[in-house]
């Protein structure tokens, strides 16, 4: 359950931005979460509720933008979308590919506040 710690970092960042802008209420927090980031969206949502309690972000909407996996094939020098599963096969040459170009993201991307 490292999602709680990750959400603490997210909300610390949110508070800092809210302080800088003199905002008193946070309405929406948007995170980018890669399919291979190793965090579980449901656990993140749960952690958000727990960690936001008593802060300016309590009651805010948490939006998780899921970042799809992009895989590189070194034989074809092409990128392709990794499917939902765990095995990434190049659609052109059929090789198994292990070079992940995106999909590990875990970022704060937008805050809406007032």
């Amino acid at each position, binding site marked *: 359950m490292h999602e709680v*710690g990750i959400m603490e970092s*997210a909300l610390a960042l949110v508070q800092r*931005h809210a302080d800088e802008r003199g905002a*008193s*209420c946070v309405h929406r927090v948007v995170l980018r979460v890669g399919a291979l980031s190793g965090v579980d969206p449901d656990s993140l949502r749960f952690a958000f509720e727990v960690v936001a309690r008593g802060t300016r972000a309590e009651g805010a909407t948490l939006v998780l933008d899921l970042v799809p996996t992009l895989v590189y094939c070194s034989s074809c020098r092409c990128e392709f979308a990794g499917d939902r599963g*765990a095995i990434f096969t190049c659609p052109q040459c059929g090789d198994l590919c292990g070079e992940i170009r995106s999909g590990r993201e875990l970022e*704060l991307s937008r*805050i*809406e506040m*007032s």
Partner: protein
Amino acid sequence: MCVDCGCGKSVPFGVKVLSVLAPGLLRSSAPAPASAAAVDAGVMTVVPAPLTPLTVQVHTSLLAKNDDAAGRNRAQFVQRGMLALNLVSSPGAGKTTLLSRTVDEFGREHRCAVVVGDLETDNDARRLHRPHVPVAQITTGSACHLDADMVARGVGALDLTGVRVMFIENVGNLVCPASFDLGEAVRVVLLSATEGEDKPLKYPPIFKSAHVVLLTKIDVAEVLGFDCRAAIENIRRVAPQATLIPLSSRSGEGMAVWYDYLRQRLLPR
């Protein structure tokens, strides 16, 4: 009451809200007059103008703090000419047993040190302790993984004179350690013959981040009915980037391949 979203929070500015407008009205993006009069049950009330919601676009990694610390660890390992490996597996897959044998055999050839993380107890550090092997135990309390700061503290507690290889035994867990870079050069993921052959399919993030996958306890595979070929096939398909080494820390089978791998990855002195 926060006027923007009707979220029920008190707002510390000096207008007393005497009545509550419908949330739809309050969210209206049309610019509102500074002060609007509303009739609520026949009483004139003053409602503050909705604040313009402020949107801030950022692109900040939620792991930035850990990644910075990992970067410092990595720089230190490289500067000291140490090969650092992060060993990750389910609880009990054989990390400590593998490291005990490795420091006894390979460790006679090249000086090794170990930082070992567990939720509680220093049992693993005591199992690994040898006169020629500096060992630091980190107890994480409730954290289900090591982070780069903990590793920095562990490493900082050791006498690193002559150390060529730094083994970091992570907390037994296949999920959380995937997100935490410790500054290692090599991430080693262990899958043991006492687990399911399909584990790589169930935990893709950690297997896809591995440089090496060790299939451990192969001495007991047959008696347990563990299908080594199926497991190897699954590892190859999920982690085609990884070097795969089947071995047993008990019988010693495959250990020479592991030591060869370590030799190849040693940093020049």
